[in-house]
C-alpha cells in the first residue's frame, strides 16, 4: 500500500517537474529574440564595413575628422616638431605609458590616426589645443599630447586607435 502510493507520488512529481522544466525552456527560448532584437541590426552592421580614406589632400599640421561606425576618427598629419615632441618623453612617467612608435604605423610616423573620443566620458577633444598642443577635451579638461596620450586631467587612458592599415602611401583603410 505504502510503496504503491509513493510510486504514484514519484510519477506525479516527475510529471510536474517535466512540465515545469519544458515550460521554463520555452520561456527562455522566447526571451532570446526579444533581447537580441536590440543588438545592432544587419543594416547597421553592413554600414560599419571598412572605409578607405585618401590622405593626399591633408596638409601637414592639419587634422581631419572622418566618421566610421558613427565614431569621429581624427587623422592628424603631424609636423616634425609634433613627432619629436611625442617621442622626447619619458614613457614611464606617463599616466598610460605607451611609446609613440606603438601608436603609429612604421614608416608612416607623420600620420596619427585616432578615435577622437575622450576616454573620460565620451566628449570630442579639440585638436591643437592644450598645454601639449595635442588635444584638449573641453568637457572636463583632459589634455592629450601630439600622440594622443593622456597627460593631464580626469581621462584614464590614451585616445584609442581604430583598426587601420595603409593600402598605399597615401591611402588608409579603416576597419
Amino acid at each position: 500500500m505504502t510503496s504503491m502510493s509513493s510510486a504514484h507520488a514519484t510519477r506525479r512529481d516527475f510529471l510536474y517537474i517535466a512540465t515545469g522544466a519544458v515550460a521554463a525552456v520555452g520561456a527562455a527560448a522566447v526571451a532570446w529574440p526579444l533581447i537580441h532584437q536590440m543588438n545592432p541590426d544587419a543594416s547597421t552592421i553592413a554600414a560599419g564595413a571598412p572605409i578607405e580614406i585618401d590622405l593626399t589632400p591633408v596638409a601637414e599640421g592639419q587634422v581631419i575628422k572622418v566618421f566610421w561606425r558613427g565614431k569621429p576618427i581624427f587623422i592628424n598629419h603631424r609636423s616634425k616638431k609634433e613627432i619629436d615632441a611625442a617621442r622626447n618623453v619619458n614613457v614611464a612617467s606617463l599616466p598610460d605609458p605607451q611609446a609613440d612608435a606603438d601608436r603609429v604605423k612604421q614608416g608612416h610616423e607623420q600620420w596619427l590616426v585616432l578615435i577622437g573620443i575622450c576616454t573620460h566620458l565620451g566628449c570630442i577633444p579639440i585638436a591643437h589645443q592644450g598645454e601639449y598642443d595635442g588635444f584638449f577635451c573641453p568637457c572636463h579638461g583632459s589634455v592629450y599630447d601630439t600622440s594622443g596620450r593622456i597627460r593631464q586631467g580626469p581621462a584614464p587612458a590614451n585616445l584609442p586607435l581604430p583598426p587601420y592599415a595603409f593600402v598605399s602611401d597615401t591611402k588608409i583603410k579603416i576597419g
Partner: protein
Amino acid sequence: MSGHATYQPQNAFMKWMERRLPIAGLVYSSFVAYPTPRNLNYWWTFGGILSFMLGAQIITGIILAMHYTPHVDLAFKSVEGIMRDVNYGWLIRYLHSNGASMFFVAVYIHIARGMYYGSYKEPREVLWILGVIIYLLMMATGFMGYVLPWGQMSYWGAVVITNLFGAIPVVGDSVVAWLWGGYSVGNPTLNRFFSLHYVLPFAIAGVVVLHIWALHVVGQNNPTGIDPKSDKDTVAFTPYATIKDGFVMVCFCLLYAWFVFYVPNYLGHADNYIPANPAVTPTHIVPEWYYLPFYAILRAIPNKLLGVAALGGSIVILAFLPWLDTSKVRSARYRPLYRQFFWMYIATVIGLGYLGSQPPEGIYVIAARILTIYYFGFFIIVLPLLGMFEKTKPLPNSISESIFPAGAPASKAKA
C-alpha cells in the same frame, strides 16, 4: 465565500511586508485561494488567454516601436527594415500583426460564451459593460495599428473610417479635420495614430484590472448559471483553474504559431504591401476580418448617417444586453428557444462577416440587409419577448448536483 485557506506569510520579511503592503495576500486571495465553480468548461479559459494576448501584444508592440518610424515617407520602409534587418524583427512583427487577430479570435469566443451562458445578467452587468468597453478600445487600437505600416489598406482604411465621423450632423466636417490634423489623411494623422496606438493598450490594461476586480466581487458564472451554494460547488483557482488555463493557452499558441510561422500574411491584405498612394484607391477596400460584420452592417444601409448609426449601434447595443434579456434563467442550457436564436445570431454575425468581405452589390447587399435586420431583431425583439414566453427547463439545485445527479458528490472530492 470562505472555506479556503487565507494567506499566511511564511517568513519574517513577508510578515513585515504584509503589514505594510499586502500585495502577496491580494495575489493569494485573487489567484490562488479564489473559489472558482468546479463545473467550468473550456470556454471559460479564454479570459486567461485574453490576458496573455494583451501581454504579448504590449511586449511585441513596445519592441516594434523601438524600430518603427511614424512618418509618411519612412513608415513603410521602417516596417520592411524590421522585417529584413532587425534581429528576429520578422518574428516580432508577425507575432504582433497576427497577435491582433488572435486577440480578436479569443475575444469573440469570450463574448459568445458570455452570451450563451447569460454571464451578463444580474449581478454581472458592470462586469459585462466593462467588457464591452475593453472591446471598443480593442477595436480602436487595432484599427490605428493597421494604419501604421502606411500601405494602401492602411491609408485607405484610415480615410474611410475617419470619414465615418463626417456623418455627424453639423459638426461632422470639423470633427474629421480635427481627427486628421489637416485637409486630408497625412503625416499628422499617422503621428497621432501612432501615439494613440501606443497608449490605448495601457488603457485597456487598466479596464482589464477593473473587469477582473468586478469579476472577483460577483464571482464567476458557470455553465448551469446558478450560483455556487457551498464549498462542494467550487475549487481553488490554483492549481485547478491555472493548470486548465495553462493547457488551453498552449493549445491556443499552437494556432497562433501556425499563423505566425506558416501563413503570416493570410489574415492581412496583399494591398498593404503597396506603399500608401493618396492618388489611387484599391479596387476592393475591406477592413481587417474582425471588423467585417460591422462593415457589412454599415454598407447594408443606403444612407450615410443611418449607416454609421447602425454600425455604432450594433456594438453599443451589447452594453444594454443585461436589460434587453428579460429571462430570469441565465444559462442557455435551460433555455431551449434562446439556444436556437443564439446560434442563429452567431451564424448571422459570421454571415455578415463574409458579406463584409464581398463587394457591396446585388445579392450581397440584400443578404446583408436581411442579416442586419436579424442582428438588431435578436436584441430588440427576440430577447425581450423570449423572457416572457419561453418555457425553460428545470434548474438543478446546485452545481454539484448537476455534475453528480445521484445526489452527494463522490467522497474523494474532499481529498
